[in-house]
């Protein structure tokens, strides 16, 4: 007996909850062959605004967590992703039209990417911080602190899961909270990952995921005064120069678009990109 298929209508992930788009809009996600697969929410600028509010309120808690603790939380995401890898493999095969071996390889790489970044969380400060020699009886220390709220345009092409993780994980390591615009054409990996995040130890609001049209939403985030940084890694097809100009109005840190399979490759630089250096002077005499 044949069963009726249950087409899903996915939602956004904002502040640890799964709301529908405020606008009520959805768009169709199709398989590689063009068949209907599911509806995804089409976020509006008000959803982006709500996501910024959620991300802002989560900054102090997440940035205040110790590096060791953040590492544990990120590692936990890798654990959960490993447990649900079959679902991700199946979705990647259907949406991206990848072979099974390619899909498995991508999911494995994404898991490894979480683990790799999780390891950095209590170590990056030793590498990017420093003790500075100064001409006086002082200790002079520079330490990295999170930039704050980071808006990310995730890579839009194939390899959607790996691209998403590669863009989001480094911003989280340093204690930033993020608003991510998922791949418009291949959003399922991001949506399923939001379900993983919701059941992991990541506090609500630390990761906020919007599906829909990056071309529509990104300008609002680029000009939003309460967003501190903009990662345009997946914005190559957008008017990204205009986005940089808009971001400059409020002095955001901006990372440029990257293309090809090496986009958002793992590096310490991606972690350091969204940190601010705090330098403190401390008298030696009193110690």
């Amino acid at each position, binding site marked *: 007996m044949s069963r009726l298929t249950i087409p899903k209508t996915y939602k956004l992930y904002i502040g640890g909850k799964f709301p529908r788009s405020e606008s009520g809009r959805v768009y169709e996600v199709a398989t590689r062959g063009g068949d209907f697969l599911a509806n995804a929410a089409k976020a509006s600028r008000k959803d982006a605004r709500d996501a910024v509010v959620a991300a802002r309120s989560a900054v102090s808690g997440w940035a205040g967590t110790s590096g060791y603790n953040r590492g544990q939380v990120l590692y936990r995401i890798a654990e959960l992703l490993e447990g649900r890898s079959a679902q991700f493999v199946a979705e990647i095969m259907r949406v991206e039209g990848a072979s099974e071996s390619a899909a498995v390889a991508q999911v494995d790489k994404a898991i490894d990417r979480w683990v790799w970044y999780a390891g950095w969380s209590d170590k990056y400060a030793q590498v990017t911080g420093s003790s500075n020699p100064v001409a006086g009886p002082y200790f002079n220390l520079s330490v990295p602190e999170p930039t704050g709220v980071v808006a990310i345009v995730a890579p839009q092409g194939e390899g959607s899961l790996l691209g998403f993780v590669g863009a989001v994980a480094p911003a989280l390591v340093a204690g930033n909270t993020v608003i991510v615009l998922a791949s418009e054409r291949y959003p399922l990996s991001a949506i399923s990952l939001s379900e993983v995040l919701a059941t992991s130890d990541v506090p609500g609001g630390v990761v906020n995921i919007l599906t829909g049209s990056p071309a529509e939403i990104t300008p609002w985030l680029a*000009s*939003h005064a309460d967003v501190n940084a903009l990662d345009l890694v997946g914005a190559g097809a957008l008017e990204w120069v205009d986005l940089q100009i808009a971001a400059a109005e409020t002095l955001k840190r901006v990372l440029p678009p990257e293309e090809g399979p090496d986009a958002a490759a793992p590096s310490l630089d991606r972690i350091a990109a969204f940190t601010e250096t705090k330098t403190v002077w401390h008298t030696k005499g009193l110690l």
Partner: protein
Amino acid sequence: MTIDTASAERAVAPAARAIEVVGGDLTEKSLRRYLEGIPGVDAVGLETRASALGTRSIKTTSKAWALDRIIELIDLTTLEGSDTPGKVRSLVAKALVPDAADPSTPRVAAVCVYGDMVPYAVEALGSAHAAGSHTGIQVAAVATAFPSGRASLAVKLADTKDAVAAGADEIDMVIDRGAFLSGRYGEVFDEIVAVKAACERDNGTFAHLKVILETGELNTYDNVRRASWLAILAGGDFIKTSTGKVSPAATLPTTLSMLEVVRDWHRLTGEKIGVKPAGGIRSSKDAIKHLVTVAETVGEDWLTPELFRFGASSLLNDVLLQRQKLRTGAYSGPAYVTVD
């Protein structure tokens, strides 16, 4: 239950409005008969009406007008045990210049502080202080053992006189909810009349009297309606929902029911009474819903600082953020308004 006839027949203090409406033989008994004769509130209908008024979509130019008007209607408030002269001075600075980045931002209607902070508010306002006129910023003081109202009448009157002498233009008094809920309407009535008398200045003019009903403790809409009538009969210039110290504070249905009383009073006597929802209104969206409700219930005449106020502190920042969004086209953030 036995009724103490001696006290029930006790004549309450004379008050022009009540004598005119209730009749010349103003007693506890006649007052109770009048208030309990007021028809009950259809709670379901009231809430439906309020939520229907809340769905109105206000866009672009109307929204810009509404945001400016909301600022002009705000009683910028600080009522914390930890208030200091410095805190009051910074509140006044914000009242004078809500948004330093935009000089076209209007000023708020009033600053609302505890009685002992009035001198500091008056001093900080300087020439911007309204001092009885309709231009400038008013100083409102909460009095009568705010927020509980649990003190003897003598203490409450001293509290009021003290604030008026210090230069308060408006007095926010709390009613004795205990007396009201146990049916001693005359006592509440007398108290409001006495406080009103204490609002008199040396030159014979009166400070405006806002009567706080504390609707969160009155339990039913019927009680809110009765208390509103009582406050108006006793001589209140404004009726105010809440102290902001009790939850729920100002809800839209409550404000609507009070506006209905004000409307009825206007039809009956031609006199205009003010309404002030206070506490719990934090977003521009909520405030705009209130504006719509006022305009649809009593009319747009009421959308002036003389007849409608918002008692709020955090509302102003949200309105400023919305204003900045309208001006620049980009969303603003809390880093662009003052930390209160």
